[in-house]
């Protein structure tokens, strides 16, 4: 198969959302992941932004469709409508901003009630390059994540440290759920669906429909 064709081929499509307080670095995190560099001169997000990338996990090509939301409380009612169908959720806080960490519980509650019950959630402590301004310790946050049964990683959208790991980690968890039969990848509602490469005869219909509406 031609290599450029392969580029557009994937086995699964996962929808991710990125949520968290304003200024935590959600957009920079997404930009670092997609473009592999820091987004200088980044401004606040109005409503939502979008990005996608294909990653290779567990022998599968997985396309991530990532929705980056506005952090301001005032936009909450709008951003909430994006939770639907998300297979993965990244809750981002700023390790130098205690408030943004304290609000994790609110974001987690939103994610649990508005997305699916089996949405894989990771909490991301961003700006870990700013060690001298740290207001939230690694230990504290990882314990909190454990108690809430969610994943946890620290990242720096500036240096790129840990950024790719976040997305791969969540994708791997979702992939495991699919392979264990806990998520049916053919239901759009689950936030995943099979890509253009068919993996089984039963996924044919889905692949067809995704092709026919490629306008």
């Amino acid at each position, binding site marked *: 198969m031609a290599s450029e064709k392969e580029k557009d081929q994937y086995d699964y499509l996962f929808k991710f959302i990125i949520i968290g307080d304003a200024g935590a670095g959600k957009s920079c995190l997404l930009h670092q992941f997609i473009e592999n560099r820091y987004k200088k001169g980044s*401004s606040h997000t109005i409503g*939502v932004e979008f990005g996608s990338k294909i990653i290779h996990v567990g022998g599968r090509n997985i396309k991530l469709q990532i929705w980056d939301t506005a952090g301001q409380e005032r936009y909450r009612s709008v951003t909430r*409508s994006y939770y639907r169908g998300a297979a993965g959720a990244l809750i981002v806080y700023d390790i130098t901003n205690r408030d943004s960490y304290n609000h994790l519980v609110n974001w987690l509650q939103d994610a649990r009630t508005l997305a699916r019950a089996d949405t894989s959630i990771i909490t991301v402590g961003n700006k870990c390059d700013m060690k001298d301004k740290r207001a939230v310790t690694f230990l504290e946050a990882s314990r909190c994540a454990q108690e809430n049964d969610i994943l946890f990683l620290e990242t720096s959208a500036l240096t790129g440290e840990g950024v790719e790991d976040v997305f791969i980690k969540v994708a791997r968890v979702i992939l495991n759920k699919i392979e264990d039969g806990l998520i049916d990848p053919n239901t759009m509602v689950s936030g995943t669906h099979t890509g253009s490469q068919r993996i089984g005869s039963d996924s044919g219909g889905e692949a067809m429909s995704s092709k026919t509406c490629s306008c």
Partner: protein
Amino acid sequence: RYPRHLASQAACRGHQQCMGSHRSSPAARGGVSPGRSPSRGRAGMAAASGSLWNDEAFGDFGKEELDAFFAADGAAPNGAGPARPPPGRSDIEAEYSRLSRSQSPARGGGPVAAAPEGVASFALDDGDSDGVDATCADSEHVQDCRVPELPEAPGGFSAEDRRLREALAGFYLARCPEKLGGVNAIVEQYRGRAVSHLWVQLASKYRLRVPDVVEGLAGTLYLGAPFEQPEDGGAGGASGSSALPPETLASPEGREELLHAWLRGGPGGVALSEGALRALCLRGLPSPGADGQLRAQLWKVMLGYLPAQPRSEWPSIEAERRASYARWKADLVAVSESFRVDVRGVQGQQVADSLSLLQQIQKDVHRTQPLVEFFQRPATQAALSSLLLVYARRNPEVQYIQGMNEVAAVLLHVASEASADEHAEADAFWCFSLLMQDIRGAFIQAVDGCSGHGAPSHASPAAKAEPGAVGKLLRALRLYDPELGAHLEGAGVPVWACSRYDGAQCLFAKDLPLAGVVRLWDCLLGDPLRFELLSQVGLAALLTSREPPTGGKEEREVYGVVLSLSHKSSLH
């Protein structure tokens, strides 16, 4: 895939017509220039008389007129009456009509559904001609496609009619010479306020670049038409018009000279009516930096901070308003020597509210216009934070919504080019407050979701008719680009994603380089129907920067394309 399928079918038929009966069906060639990229791969524009033009703002703009235009725009070179689709094509029309309706089920009930005939014939002409023109240009029948002569202008044409006629003649000569013959008819149908519709039509149909549309529109506006002076029908309007000969309006130097004479005031100065000022502002002010005073003062007049006349009242009005702002600010904000901003207040809850607001505001102020040095200065950031906080506290139903910082920043930048710092801040505050009167609704709608009733729209946006600005944009999209419109709805793209293209929220402040924003705002602020033009600019940006979909691309990529459009559109 209906567009390709239909286009090829139509092209095939068109080819036969081209070979067989040139003279009989000039309308079938529609309006596509040989120079237009044949590979654009976009469905033809299915514009028809429809809800867009029957909206509140254009309630007085007759449906018949537009029907007539759509017919005339595809009309024969001699401009003789509306084009009738040649016989034998009704099956395609029917199919198109059926397909286009099935593609966007939510459009039912509107005038579009009520008049499928119009949709079909217009869209077909356009889609049809894609293939036909290329064939004509390459075939031995090319001599039959020769340029018709430009007819004489009728005696009754005003200077403005002639200007529009010239512009259109130039336009069609470059892009679609076979339409030259119909220029007079188009002028007659689009003269006056409707020129903006004309340019949006042309932008969409010929995929013009946004700057070209803005230039074309700015060059052909009617000074005396209600488009520019809806409220100014009396003596003021007349004197404004007579004071501004079209030649002066047409040349940037002439406009600049006139504006400077107006700004100087005094015995040697020129008095201009508000209508005349709007006309000048709409056409653009000298490039930013050349004279900050002029733009700053003119924008104040456009926003209603200062009256156009009499000039003598300006100093007292400015002094009074600046004093009010200073008073309000002193109650709410304390700015230290090092430009640290803190809240002031007596009651605990108020202070807590202010503090929370200030935190939200400062987060955004620190990342407003990050590439412009002016906004990195502590003094600028303190001024921006203060004025936003004062506004937020004085307007509890709006408070602070992300995006307001972008709007205020542009105004502060312009005000700073004219006045000392504290005056600039106060002036920017007033201009911002006045502008927000017009756009606050869009902000509130943006955070409340698109329903406009405060309820988040969890349901599929396609399922219900969206009210307000977003709904208007979607309806417009359905008319101009049903493929994209249907896609956005069918794919369940949250309507919010489109709303920025309505532009009503941030007025493109976040999406363009600052100089481009300032130039665009000359137009927006000068336009008395401010946000009608704005939404058309947004629509034009959306349509002209849309990438042709490519077959191999995943359908969902379109989300990304749509969301990144604003970064691609360049208006400066």
